[in-house]
């Protein structure tokens, strides 16, 4: 057990230090605005965890980034940078509204899973475009996914303005958003189950997210699919040698990754927003998901506390704003954390490797007793 704890510490100490560093830099920025960092951080934590309703608020903020964090984690595990979670999320939101509206005659127990599956598949398919481009043509997924993000945004805006608009589908005057999904397609609010959640809009989506994390953990570490994806990510040449197809797993990983981002979009629509808005810019959950994954050591279970941290930052920033501190501080903290991790990742890996080279006894010829 002690060995396991020591291993856990060696793996998590980098993100923990990165987070601490982020908060320190944030404190400096707060001080620059003429405020007291400690007061600010107290407001941050009180605002996000101080009461059951506020915990509820934090929970629903955590939900989408838990999904995009999982999405990023699984792509990282396959050696891929899925910067396209934004677009995959957006595509899924459109699919969600479409299925919800056109399926509104179905009973809830059928419709809701159908919507979630549709969201997963929409995001998954969007993600596998980039996977296919990489597998078949060697196109760098960073560039392709970012291009696909913008394409997804414009497609979504068009869909919202034309086929899924309020006037076309519901006969109402046109607005800057899509038709609103029917009640049968909405997730249950937590306050309906546990009244102490009060004013919070928290919904059951958090449980779906946690379940997704569990399923991803199982797939990644207990199945051959996971073994193959991880092997391709660690050493694609050795994977190929071992009979594992790099192309197939690249596409699969991007499908799963996009699917998770898409599921996040579906959950967000059915749980909170209930419609898709026309937007000039991408929502940002995908980018946050990258940081969430890296701070969570790209591990499905590590993503959970990491998403909680970023959710606290997100929720608490409003409280900080009330205390007179610009809400952008929390994005700076996120950015610094990611930069710190980028810088230290290789140092850590190199450090481990050097330490274990040292353990190699010079007298080891491998012959004695062979």
């Amino acid at each position, binding site marked *: 057990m002690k060995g396991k704890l020591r291993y856990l510490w060696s793996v998590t100490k980098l993100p923990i230090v990165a987070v601490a560093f982020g908060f320190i830099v944030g404190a400096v920025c707060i001080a620059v605005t003429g405020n007291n960092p400690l007061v600010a951080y107290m407001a941050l934590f009180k605002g996000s965890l101080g009461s059951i309703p506020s915990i509820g608020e934090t929970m629903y903020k955590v939900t989408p980034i838990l999904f995009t964090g999982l999405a990023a984690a699984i792509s990282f595990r396959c050696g891929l940078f899925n910067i396209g979670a934004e677009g995959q999320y957006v595509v899924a939101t459109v699919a969600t509204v479409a299925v919800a509206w056109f399926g509104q005659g179905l009973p809830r127990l059928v419709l809701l899973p159908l919507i979630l599956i549709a969201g997963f598949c929409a995001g998954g398919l969007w993600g596998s475009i980039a996977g296919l481009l990489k597998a078949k043509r060697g196109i760098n997924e960073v560039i392709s996914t970012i291009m696909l993000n913008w394409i997804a945004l414009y497609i979504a805006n068009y869909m919202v303005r034309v086929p899924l608009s309020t006037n076309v589908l519901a006969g109402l005057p046109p607005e800057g958003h899509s038709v609103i999904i029917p009640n049968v397609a909405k997730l249950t609010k937590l306050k309906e189950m546990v009244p102490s959640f009060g004013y919070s809009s928290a919904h059951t989506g958090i449980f779906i997210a946690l379940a997704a994390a569990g399923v991803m953990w199982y797939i990644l570490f*207990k*199945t*051959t*699919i996971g*073994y*193959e994806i*991880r*092997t391709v990510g*660690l*050493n694609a*040449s*050795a*994977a*190929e*040698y*071992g*009979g*594992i*197809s790099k192309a197939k797993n690249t596409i699969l990983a991007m499908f799963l990754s996009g699917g998770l981002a898409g599921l996040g979009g579906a959950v967000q629509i059915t749980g909170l927003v209930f419609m898709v808005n026309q937007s000039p810019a991408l929502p940002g959950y995908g980018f946050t998901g990258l940081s969430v994954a890296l701070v969570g050591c790209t591990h499905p279970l590590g993503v959970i506390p990491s998403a909680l941290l970023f959710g606290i930052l997100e929720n608490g920033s409003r409280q900080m704003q009330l205390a007179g501190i610009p809400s952008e501080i929390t994005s700076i903290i996120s950015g610094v954390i990611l930069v710190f991790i980028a810088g230290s990742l290789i140092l850590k*890996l190199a450090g481990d*490797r*050097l*330490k*274990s*080279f*040292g*353990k*190699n*006894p*010079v007298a*080891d*010829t*491998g*012959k*004695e*007793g*062979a």
Partner: protein
Amino acid sequence: MSKVVEMKGITKIFPGTVANDHVDFDLEKGEIHVLLGENGAGKTTLMNILYGLYQQTSGDIYINGKKEDIRGPNAAIALGIGMVHQHFMLVENFTVAENIVLGHEPKKGLTLDMEAAKTSVREVSDRFGLEVDPDARIEDIPVGLSQRVEILKALHKGAEILILDEPTAVLTPQEIDDLGEILKNLTNEGKSIILITHKLKEVLGMSDRVTILRRGKVIGTVQTSETTADELAEMMVGREVNLSSDKAEKAAGEVILNVEHLTVKDHRNLPAVKDVSFEVRQGEILAIAGVDGNGQKELVEALTGLMPTESGKVTLCGKDITGASPRTVIEAGTGHIPQDRQKRGLILQSSLTENLILGYHYQPPFAKNGKMDQIKIAEHGKELIQEFDIRTPNQDVSAGSLSGGNQQKVIIAREFYKDPPLLIAAQPTRGLDVGAIEFVHMRLLEQRDNNKAVLLVSLELDEIMNLADRIAVIYHGQIVGILDAAQATERQLGLMMAGGTSADKGDVS
């Protein structure tokens, strides 16, 4: 004779190992002095210190009698020291001239004066008899010529002291003789040369003195004329070494692998394997001999499904596996010890347990319907580590933390577990110390004795002559002859490796 180089009490400590331990080494003007030792003995480290790539932890260096502090390659070059590295330090898509002048380019104002560069390259090339085309690109010239460029690089910078690190790995026996001639010419012109090698034959043929290193310490310095191969081997390893393995007489059985008219293109779309045919039978070791870069890599990769096949047919145990995927080839009954163990054969960051199932991780008993059985996998790992005596604290350490010899054992253990009818071993003892080499040889012979077919690709003629039943020589992608090992001589093989044929010497195809 004056000493141009004196290294006194050189010690170099890296975290966890002592690479050089109070080493004394000197070089006299005009001599060829060999630094001999097994892989990992500390020879390259010592010379990297002399060339300024490393700094010694303690000890002094004297060049031409004066104590010097060599802080980097520029300092070494200024002192007249030049190094030709084992792995060429040449930029592939630059020309010969660009590579030779890199770092001290002739200038015309702000611009690069390539005309002056080419002229000076031709001058040095003519003076020392090392012919090259200054405008040729490195990626287009043969490997042996690249070595000449490396030597010219050092001479062009005015090197008086030349260090050559394992220069003969990429040469045929005849080219090795040529190199010997070149080195003699250079010493006649007043240059002094240090040769790093672990090959006894080269030592005896080319040097004036030999210094033997073992585990970072100097064992002794002897006059080449006064020593023998056996004596050197013993000093190198520290015990009596049996330079040849005992091989039992064996009659080969059925044909396991049948390769017919195989043609393979390399990554530049040029034919690397041309119309190659051979077969490997049960109970025999067929060795492919040849200088590195004559198509061995492409041959092995095509046979194992890692590279596409242009044309031809490959049959394993009667099943057609031409152009099949790696998984199909594995399932048809192949074990593969890859040439590059760290790139292909292992996932360095993963545990030994995970490495030991690579290739059959999806098959029962390790996995059923996609779900992996962690208990069986762990058991399997433990068993193999014990059976093959892999030196490791436990099965959960990363493969990257093991020594080269133990890493190779992991690969061998994993492949042997499959008990494959065909075993392909590509340079299986590269970079290993003598103990590990003996282990690998023993295991290969074991497979052969157990009626398996073994295809061995090796660059070391000694190893081939030791282990093989039949020897096929590859040159420029073609099999120029297949000989019975009992009848083959080194001279014959050397000729064939350089393109001659063995039509009149008992070809056994």
